[in-house]
C-alpha cells in the first residue's frame, strides 16, 4: 500500500489561511451558513514564563494517523482507511452524529455539521492524490509550510525540520510499515 503523509513546517507558516480557503473551495464548505472548514489555521500568542510571547502560526486538519482511533470509535463504521493513499476517509451516509469520533480524536479533526447532523472531516483529498494531484490545501500554500508526500520520502530535509510536529507531540506518530 502506497502511503502519503502531510508534513507541516511551523517556521514557514503565517496562518495566512489560503489552505483553509482552498479547502473550502475544494469541498464546497458553506462558511456563510456557519459550516466549518475541515482545515483550520491559528494565529495565537502564548505568554511564556520569561515574560516573552510565543507567536504560533499553525494549520491543522485530520492527521490521518496510522492507528486512527476514530475508525474503531465510529459505531456505524463510517470511517476507514483508503488503501491507495493511507488517508482516513469516510462515508457518512449512516452517520448518526453521535460525536464518538470527535471524542476519540486527539486533534479535534472531526467536526459536527449542524445542517445535516453529520460528522465531516478532511479526507486528505484522497481522490485528488489518487489522480496525481496534491491536496487542495497543499496546492494553495505559497510558503512550503504544508506538503503531502509519499511516506518513504519523509527523510533528510524534513526529518530535522519538525515534520508533522503536531502528530509527534501527540504521540501518534505514523508508524512505518
Amino acid at each position: 500500500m502506497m502511503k502519503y503523509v502531510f508534513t507541516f513546517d511551523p517556521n514557514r507558516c503565517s496562518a495566512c489561511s489560503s489552505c483553509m480557503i482552498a479547502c473550502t473551495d475544494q469541498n464546497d464548505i458553506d462558511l456563510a451558513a456557519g459550516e466549518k472548514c475541515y482545515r483550520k489555521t491559528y494565529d495565537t500568542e502564548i505568554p511564556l514564563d520569561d515574560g516573552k510571547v510565543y507567536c504560533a502560526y499553525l494549520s491543522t486538519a485530520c492527521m490521518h494517523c496510522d492507528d486512527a482511533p476514530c475508525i474503531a470509535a465510529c459505531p456505524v463504521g463510517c470511517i476507514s482507511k483508503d488503501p491507495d493513499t493511507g488517508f482516513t476517509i469516510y462515508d457518512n451516509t449512516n452517520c448518526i452524529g453521535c460525536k464518538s469520533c470527535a471524542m476519540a480524536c486527539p486533534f479535534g479533526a472531526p467536526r459536527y455539521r449542524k445542517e445535516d447532523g453529520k460528522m465531516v472531516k478532511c479526507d486528505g483529498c484522497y481522490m485528488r492524490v489518487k489522480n496525481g494531484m496534491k491536496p487542495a490545501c497543499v496546492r494553495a500554500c505559497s510558503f512550503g509550510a504544508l506538503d503531502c508526500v509519499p511516506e518513504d520520502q519523509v527523510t533528510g530535509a524534513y526529518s530535522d525540520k519538525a515534520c508533522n510536529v503536531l502528530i509527534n507531540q501527540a504521540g501518534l506518530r505514523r508508524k512505518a510499515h
Partner: protein
Amino acid sequence: MKKLAIIGFGGAGYCAAAAARECDPDAHIDVYTDTDIGPYNPMLTTYYVKGAIDYDALFPFGSLEEIQKKLKLQVYRDTPVTGLIPAEKAVCLADGTKRAYDSILVSTGASAFVPKIPGWDLPGVFKMRTAADAVHLKKMLEEGKIRSGLVVGASWVGIKVLEDLVERGIDCTLIDGADWSFSIAVFRETADRIQRDLEKKGIKLAFGQMLSHIEQEPDGRLTAVMKNGNRFTADTVAICIGIRPNVGFLKDSGIAMNRGVLVDEHMRTSAEGIYAAGDCCEAYDIQSGEQKNIGVWLNARKQGAVAGANMVGVKREFGGNALLNLAHYLDYDFISIGDVTSCREEDEVYEYEDERYYFRAVRGGGRIKCINMIGTADSNGIVKSIFIKSFENSAAELDVSAVCYLRANGFPESFIEFIGGKIVDRA
C-alpha cells in the same frame, strides 16, 4: 492449527475474530452466539428508533453470512454457551455437547437490567439494549398511540430513549432513584445544569424516586409507583436503570470475577487460555489502577482485537481504560472524563459557566481526577487526550495545537491553565 472459540458475537467478539484471522490465516475459529443476527452496536438502537439509520446500519460489520465468509468462521447460531470448563478449555452447550479449544474468548456483552418487580412485563413497559428492543419500540411509536411516557433511569440509555420520545412530541417525565441525573458519572453541579437545561426543553424531572412496581390503569395506561408512594402515569414506561454483564454461565467455572470477568492487559482471565473482552469484562482503569467494567464500544473493539491477537500467539496489550461518558441528545451534549467518585473534599475544584459551556474539573494529588464539560463535543477528543496524557505524566502541559484549538473554540484561559497549562516547544 489453532482452535479458537468465541463466545458471544458483538463488537468485541467480531474484532477478536478479525484480529485472530489477520494474525493467523489457518486458525479454526468457532463462534457461539445466542442470536441469529450479526454483531451490532447496542448504542445504535435508539438511532434506529428515531429513523436516523436503517435497520441494516445497526450491523456495521455486515450480516452474519458476510462475516462468516469473510473471516472463515464456523458460526453456531442461537447457540448459547451454558458453561465453561477452564481445566479442559472446553465450552458446554445446553444439549450437553462439550468442545475443547486451544483458547476461548468470553465476549458475551451485557444486558439491560430489568428488576422483576410486579408489572415489569406489562404491555407498554420496555427496555432498550437489543435490536429486537429497538424494533419493538419503533413499531410502538409508529402506531402513534403513545402520548406520554415515563423514562425510569436518567442513564446514558435513558436519555437517548427520552430523546426518541420527545422528538415525536411525546410528553415525558424522567425519573431516577438517585438525587441527581447520571449520578455515578457527573458532579452534582453538572447535573444541576443538565437538569435545568432539560427542563428548558419541556421535560419533567423527578429524582430521588425509587421504583416500587408498575400498575395498569383501567384505561390501559401505566402507573409507576414509587417506594415513597408517588405515582406517575403515562402511556408507556421505559426501564433504563442499568446493564449487567452476561457472565451468569461462568458462576461455577472458578474464573475470577467481580461484576464482570477480571482480565489483565492481555485480556487474559485467571484461567489459562481463557480470555475475555468487551462489556462482560473488567480491564484495568488507568486512573485507579484497578479493574473496572467500562462498557463502551471503542473499548470493546480494542479489547476484542487485543484478545484475538493474543489467542493466536501474537502479543498485544490493551492500553487501559479511562472512564469516559459522552451523552448527546436533543441538540445537547456533555461529557464526563475520569472518575467522579475518586474526588475528595480537599481537592481543588474548577468551575466555569457561560451560555455555551459548562466546565467543572477536579484536581487532587497533583493530577486531574475528573472533568465534566457541557457543550464541548467538537473539543472532547482533545481534552480527553490531555487527561490521558496526564496519567502518563502528571506534569503534562498542553501543546501549542491544543491551546490554539481550545482557545479558538472559546474555552476560557483559566480552564486551559487548570488542566495543565501550556508548553511551547521552541525547537
